[in-house]
């Protein structure tokens, strides 16, 4: 439990073994490679609509998701491929969704911004900034009212903090002491608007703190720090003590979406942050500690690439829904046809 005064995680050496290191790196590499492929496939016209990539921010999903139980829930945003993969949605089902195929995890109806998988309690994929936050609070309320000891993890960006929906939801969650783990992915920009040009108080953990909520602020490029913070938060929430808020300071390496000319930040700034690439940072640390070698990294990358190739093959081979089914899935009766 961290007070508003410090807002820094307890320092110190986080223990790590080889299996753990391999799995963390696997999550990050898979997400990275998956999305680099997505960028190509977008260029090739296989993926359309809006495509928001998570490249640079993978440590967050990789750090948090493995700590959630199957019964916990996740509510995410339109920048959710990394969350989805780390939550266990198969790369094939995700890629098929991006291709708009029936084999997609949202039956092809949603596309990149609307990834759903109820079997994994992954409730989207929401393209209205801050629009998913009240939903997460409601899922947590349902758990509390039904006496289930579950957590709902709610992810959103720094931009969401300016929206009224964020504030109303913080208040409800804190007032009713609901089991939500709020994860604010502060990549310091909302499209082209930097945090200091959009928030009078750019320390977002402090803002959450004003709801008498427990908060922490953490280096989102350090997967171990993320994981340690998430563990502290989850312990608190699981103990039934109320919500917990983590601000994860990170950076988006790529453009906001495919249409963004990136006029709002300098190449230098991007380069500085790329020097703190979470994958490179963690690889170096794991090697330093003697947990991973050259071969391991190479074989992880090969494994990821194979998984992605298989995903693309599945998506390519997938089927388009017949036009006759256009109005399916609007109401339950029809979905059940």
């Amino acid at each position, binding site marked *: 439990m961290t007070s508003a005064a410090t807002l820094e995680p307890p320092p110190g050496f986080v223990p790590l073994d080889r299996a753990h290191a391999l799995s963390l790196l696997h999550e990050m590499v898979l997400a990275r490679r998956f999305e680099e492929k997505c960028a190509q496939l977008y260029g090739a016209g296989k993926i359309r609509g809006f495509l928001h990539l998570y490249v640079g921010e993978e440590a967050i999903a990789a750090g948090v998701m493995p700590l959630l139980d199957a019964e916990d*829930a996740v*509510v995410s945003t339109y920048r959710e491929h990394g969350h989805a993969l780390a939550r266990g949605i198969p790369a094939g089902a995700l890629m098929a969704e991006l291709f708009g195929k029936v084999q*997609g*995890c*949202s*039956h*092809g*109806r*949603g596309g990149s911004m*609307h990834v*759903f*998988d*109820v079997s994994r309690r992954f*409730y*989207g*994929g*929401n393209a*209205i900034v801050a*629009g998913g*936050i*009240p*939903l*997460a*609070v*409601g*899922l*947590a*309320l*349902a*758990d509390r*009212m*039904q006496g289930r000891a579950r957590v709902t993890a709610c992810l959103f960006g720094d931009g969401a903090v300016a929206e*009224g*929906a964020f504030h*109303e*939801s913080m*208040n*409800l969650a804190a*007032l009713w002491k609901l089991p939500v783990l709020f994860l604010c992915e502060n990549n310091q920009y909302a499209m082209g608007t930097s945090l200091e040009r959009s928030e009078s108080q750019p320390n977002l953990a402090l803002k959450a703190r004003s709801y008498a909520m427990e908060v922490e602020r953490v280096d989102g490029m350090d997967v171990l720090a993320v994981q340690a913070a998430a563990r502290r938060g989850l312990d608190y929430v699981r103990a039934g003590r109320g919500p917990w808020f983590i601000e994860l300071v990170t950076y988006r390496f790529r453009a906001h979406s495919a249409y963004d000319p990136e006029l709002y930040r300098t190449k230098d700034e991007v380069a500085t942050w790329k020097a703190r690439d979470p994958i490179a940072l963690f690889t170096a640390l794991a090697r330093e500690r003697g947990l991973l070698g050259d071969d391991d990294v190479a074989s992880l990358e090969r494994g990821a690439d194979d998984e992605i190739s298989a995903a693309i093959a599945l998506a390519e081979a997938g089927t388009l829904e017949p036009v006759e089914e256009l109005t*399916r*899935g*609007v*109401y*339950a009766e029809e*979905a059940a046809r």
Partner: protein
Amino acid sequence: MNGAPAVKVTYREAVRAAMREAMQRDARVFLMGEDVGRYGGTYACSLGLLDEFGPERVRDTPLSEGAFVGVGIGAAIGGMRPIVEIMTVNFSLLALDQILNNAATLRHMSGGQVGVPLVLRMATGAGRQVAAQHSHSLENYYAHIPGLKVLAPATVEDARGMLWTALLDPDPVILFEHATLYGTEGELAEDAGAVPIDRAAVRRAGRDVTVVGYGGTVAKALEAARMLAERGIDAEVIDLRTLRPLDDETLVASVRKTRRAVLVDEGWKTGSLAGEICARLVERAFYDLDAPIARVCTEEVPIPYPKHLEDAALPQPGRIVEAVLATVGGRG
């Protein structure tokens, strides 16, 4: 329904009984909204429920319409059966993003996976001199949205029975309760139960003209029909009951018979639900019409505070009579 003794109840009591029984019947049902608990509901619809069910199930919220409607959506997804009360339709705009982009849309955009069995209740309408910001009738905003069902109970039976049916529905259902109805009385069987929510009702059968209303305008339409009867004009009065999906069949059957229609709607005329009804009748029964369909709607003005101006802005029996007379035209 089945011969149980009928008692006189107010619309307000019918709403309260419906909520009370729903909470007794199903542990997943709870009520949430501004002042539904301690205060007893702005319109006293939930008076006593806090004592009976406690603050978890009769849950007062802060003034956060957007968030608590969203919380209701999340709770519905999470297995509860929330009844979320928005105090009045006027404040529902603050929740419209959640209603349209989440409640109505989640099932479809998740490819059928995520259902939202949420019931939203709100008071609607004008007629009490509460002026421009508190007198809206925005039913057509909601009737426009695929994924929603939209109801407008106009009788005590519907106030009690529609909520029941709505709570059985796997999709989001919105109930509009016209604020002037809460104090009205009607007969209701003591064991009155669920009623269908996909059918309009013929409240008065007639041969000469079809008058269509819903919610707060049904009584006005019936009053107009009485006035018309004195002049020898036999009006059929239809209560839409369900604004989405619309019951085309009942509407078309009536117009096929009467060959004339006057549509009454408390929404502002331009862009009203009455326009939609007109278009549907044209699409489905054009060749049966002997005269242009007429609309009696609210004038294109925010509702003024003074009574004489408010009355003039809203549909009234007299204006309905005039419209019918113009419609039956040469005949009259």
